[in-house]
Structures are given as C-alpha cells and as structure tokens.
C-alpha cells in the first residue's frame, strides 16, 4: 500500500511538472508583450523596459520558467534596491494589475471556492444518491417518475437560469435568504451568516450534479440488485432493507466516490458561472476577471492550480478506491 502511494505520488509530481511547463510555454507564446500589460494608459517605453527587467521577462524562456518554479519553493524578489518588492514562498508570480502577489490573491479566493464546492458536493451526494436509491427501489412507481422528472429538468436547466431564478424568487421576491452584500464570511467566525451566504449557490450547483448522480445511482443500484451476491444475501434470509442499505450501497460506493472526486476537482478549477451570478470572490471569478484584464500571471497561476487539483484529486480517488475495494489493494 505504502509503495503504491509513493509510486503514484511520484507520478503525480512528474505530471504536474509537465503540465506547468506546457502551460508556461503556451502563455509565453501568446501574442502579447507581458511587460507592456503591466502599466496603463500613460506608459512610456522606459517604464515598460523597466518592468520587463523587474519581472525577469528579458531573460530566455527556460530561465523564466526556472525562476517561476523556484519562486514556488523559495519565494521571489522582483527588481533591486529600494524599488524591490518580494513575494514569499510559495510565490506564483506578481500581478501588476492588482499590485499584489498572485499567491495572496489565490489564498483569498480559495476558501470561497472550497466552501462552495464542499457544500455543493455534500448536498448533491445526499439528494442524488437518495433520489437514485428511491427511484431504483420503487422502479416504475411514482418515486421513480418524480425522480426522472427531476433529472430531466435539472439537466436541461443551465446554471445561469437556476441561479438567477433562485436569486430572483428566493432572495428578492420572497426574501427567504438575504442578498449577501456584506461579502464572504468564514464558517468559523459566523456559521449562520456563512450558511446564508452559500445556501443559494450550493443549491444552484448541486441541482445540476444531483441530476447526474440520481441517474447514476439508480442505474448502479438496479444493476447491483441483479448480482448473484445479492441473491446469496436474500437466500440467507436477509431482509430487503438490509440488502439495499448494506449489500447494495456498499457495492456502489466505490464508483460514486470516484465520480464525486473528479467532479469536485473540476469545481475547484472554477465554478465560473455560479460564482459570477452570486458575486462570490472565488477562484472562478478571479480567473474570469484576470482573463478579461489580461492579468497573465494570475491566469497562469489559476490554470496550473486547476490542473494540480485534478491531478491531486485523482491520486486521492485512487487511494480511496484501494480502501473501498479490497480487490484493488496492492501490497
């Protein structure tokens, strides 16, 4: 098991290196001069050249990449003398648009996106698996019909429609949840405010995923109920409730965890639409803003971060799978 994890972790690190190199290369090939993007209207060639040297953009591409990589581990100082400024490790670059270290911007946005993704994940797992099991248990009866209607509606409605509808009806017309004008509050400082702040975004995101999970769970439960080992359990005299709760759910857990892990990773990369509708200062909105403003260091960092999250989640899912499915255990 330990050997397995070490091997996979080494592989993950190698993948991250390759991905970051490719992303860095792509960004350096863009037809913009990153130095000239560092100042606004009243730019002079002198300022641009000065910034170019400060940011190390005058150096060859491989050296720039090396500076970028080493900055992640040891921090980075831009410029020299009295005008020098530095970002402490892990430094992912410096945003001239915001006059801030990219790492600080990421650290500010990450808790918002994590809160959004984790809450939505819990909600959609509960709703999706619950509805899916009900639909399978009462196949062809009304719970099955209700769940298929839900699946159809939820997959057809885009996030911006459900999100806006929730905002308009729940927040503005019925005033059930206050419009969050105060901004992000941490769950540790104000749990109730945190809940109010995130409940509608959670629902918006969860609806879409819950539909997928409902369908998946229903199919998986029905398939498992036809397995020989379920017949064995019944032949032992195990009642239908235990057959479903213990034998069947245990069997579909591993594939659902895999699916959830990868979907979760995708969300960290950016729930752009949801974050934009609800004005959440998360990674998705940060990415969107930096793309609009050609804030290249931020775009670079969020792109690499998204890739890293997917790779790391894959590793975690693989390890979880080995825990959940005894056949996968590798010693």
């Amino acid at each position: 098991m330990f050997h397995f994890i070490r091997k996979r972790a080494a592989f993950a690190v190698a993948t991250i290196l390759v991905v970051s190199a490719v992303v860095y290369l792509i960004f350096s090939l863009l037809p913009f001069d990153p130095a000239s993007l560092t100042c606004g209207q009243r730019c002079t060639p002198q300022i641009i050249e000065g910034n170019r040297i400060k940011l190390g953009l005058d150096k060859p591409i491989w050296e720039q990449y090396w500076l970028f990589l080493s900055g992640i581990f040891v921090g980075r100082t831009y410029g020299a003398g009295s005008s020098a400024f530095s970002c402490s490790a892990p430094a992912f670059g410096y945003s001239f648009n915001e006059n801030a270290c990219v790492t600080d911007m990421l650290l500010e946005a990450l808790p918002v996106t994590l809160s959004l993704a984790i809450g939505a994940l819990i909600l959609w797992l509960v709703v999706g698996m619950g509805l899916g099991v009900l639909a399978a248990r009462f196949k062809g009866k009304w719970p099955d019909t209700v769940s298929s209607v839900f699946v159809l509606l939820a997959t057809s409605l885009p996030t911006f429609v459900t999100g806006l509808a929730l905002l308009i009806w729940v927040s503005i017309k019925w005033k059930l949840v206050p419009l969050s004008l105060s901004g992000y509050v941490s769950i540790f400082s104000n749990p109730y405010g945190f809940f109010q702040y995130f409940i509608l975004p959670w629902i918006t995101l969860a609806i879409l995923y819950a539909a997928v999970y409902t369908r998946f769970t229903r199919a998986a439960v029905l398939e498992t109920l036809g397995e020989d080992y379920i017949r064995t359990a019944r032949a032992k005299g195990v009642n239908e409730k235990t057959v479903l709760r213990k034998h069947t759910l245990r069997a579909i857990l591993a594939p659902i965890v895999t699916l959830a892990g990868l979907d979760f990773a995708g969300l960290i990369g950016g729930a752009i639409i949801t974050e934009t509708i609800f004005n959440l200062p998360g990674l998705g909105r940060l990415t969107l803003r930096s793309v609009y403003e050609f804030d290249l260091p931020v775009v670079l960092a969020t792109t690499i971060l998204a890739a890293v999250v997917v790779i790391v989640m894959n590793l975690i899912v693989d390890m979880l799978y080995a825990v959940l499915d005894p056949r996968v255990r590798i010693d």
Partner: protein
Amino acid sequence: MSEAKTELLKIDDLRVSFKTDDGVVKAVDGVSLTVNSGETVAVVGESGSGKTVTSLSVMGLHKRGSAQITGSIKVRDGERMLDIVTATDEEILDVRGRAVAMIFQDPMSALHPFFRIGNQLAEAYLVHNPGKKEEAKKRAVEMLDLVGIPDPLQRANEYPHQFSGGMRQRVMIAMALMNSPKMLIADEPTTALDVTVQAQILALLSDLQKEFNMGILLITHDLGVVAQVTERVNVMYAGRIVEQAPVDDIFYNPAHPYALGLLQSVPRITVHGGERLKAIPGQPPSLINLPKGCAFAPRCEYIKHADANACATLMPELLGASPAHTARCHIPESSRKEIFAAAMKEVRA
C-alpha cells in the same frame, strides 16, 4: 441413517409463469416432487427446462408480482410444514437460510466482493440469531473448518477474491450450513468448477449430508453428477417432469425417450474412433404457447411406436407400472421397454 425418514420438502403441482412482452412463459408446469431427510433428489434437464425456476420458487426468491405461482411448496420447519406459495414475506424470510438453505452455480460471483468471508458467513447466522455476534464469528470459523478450508481463523478475515473457485464453493456450502438447515438446495453446485474440484465438492456434500441427515435437492444438467450422489432422479423437459425414477433405473432402464436421448448423448471414453457423438435432434420448444400434446414429440425418434395423433394433441400423464418409476410417454410401456433396452445395449456396447 438409522433415523426415520421425514418429509422435508413436498412440491405439489407447482406452476410458475412469467408475463413477458411476447406472452406468458410457463417456466414450470405441474411439477411435483418430494425430498426426505438423508436423501438426495436430482432434477435434471437442459437450460430452460425449468429446474432453476423450481429451485428459486422453493426459496421464495422470485420477485413478487413478476412470477405467477400456483400449487404448493411445503417446507419442513421443525414440526410444521410451511407452504412457501401462500406464506407471507416475513414467514419466508424466517425459514430462508435457516430451515432451507441454498448454494448456487457460480461461486465466483455469489460472494459479495467487498465483505470479509467471515463476516459474510456470520451474517447468515446473525440474521436468524440477532445480537449473537461472538457466537456467529465462532461458528463461521467452525464451518470453514468443517468444509475443509485450511487455516480457517485466518481465512475468515480474507476477501472472496483471495479464494480459488473450489474454495469459494466450499465457503458457499459453509454459509448454507451456518444454521444447520435440514434441507439444502444445490443449484448446479459443480458446473463452474474444474472436474477434479467437482468430485471434491460432491464428496464434501455427501459427507455433510450423512453428518447432518440433510435432504438435498440437486439441480444439475450433468448426468455424471447424478450418478455419483443421488437416490432419485426427476428429468425435466419444457417445464414438466417427464420421468421420475430411482437413479439406477434412469441409467439402466430409462422410460422416456428424452431421458434415453440424454444418456445416449453422454460422451464415452469407450467410443470407437471416428464415431459421431449422438445428439437429440432439434431444439427445446419455446415456453410461450407450448403446443398441445407432448412437448417432446417434435424431437422424438420413437414417435412411430406411438399413436401419433395422441402425441400431437394430448399431454401424456406421468404414469408407470411402479409408482416409483413413472414417465410421460404415449408409447405403451411394454413396447417401450423392448425398444429402449435395444437402444441402451448400443450405449453400453
């Protein structure tokens, strides 16, 4: 076997049909048979003859609503006989795995891949003895030991994929015996196993049967298995029993052309080089809209010896000079003996 024989299972005029989009499938049509303690009764037939449907009916494992079941299946539970056909779900759950247990064809898929062997065995006991966890665990190890699994204490902590096919079938047998049932249903218990392992499993079943004085209903298509372990044989064709007889009679004195055909089509090591293996011509009929008359008539080689009109229009009754050996055939019993004896000579030659 000094104990008196008690009736453990009595199936009477069992009919099971399934509604499908193409029509009603009469999978089992008027099956009657009895299993006594200490005795092994075989149900033989090819795929689709209704033998597995019969065995699942005894366990009450057909989905409510999907199968139409009439007749009666009386299973002994202590002093009383419970009729599975009319029993409530709770009553069936109560006898399942306790009074009557079942082992299945494919041990590779019949064990839950995610639970430890010991826990799967213990569950069979816990279902009928709630709360007795320590006893269940102890019993699981005892049973594994009994069915010949070496190092049972350690093996109980392992998962099914760590067992070979034969070992898994031993585990299935151990699981079936967790509650010391009087009646065991074995649905093709050796079909998925290697021949050498088959013999071991059959020997194990025989030993356990003697030890516990169990009645076994053995479902199989393998006449070799039948010859080794059974006392009485029921040959099924198209949902009906076409011949029932003591095991020796089936092999030396078959009374139904289908049973004869099955015997003739067993490959023999004494066969002369170049000789073709004999087969029964044609296909078994669809169980939807079975024709009137004898279901085997279209494939029957000996139809010229019978009243062809009767074969085509009338289902023969299960009859014979001795009630212990009966068959469904319109050929007069006296002439059948002669014709079949001649054919059997060929088989044994």
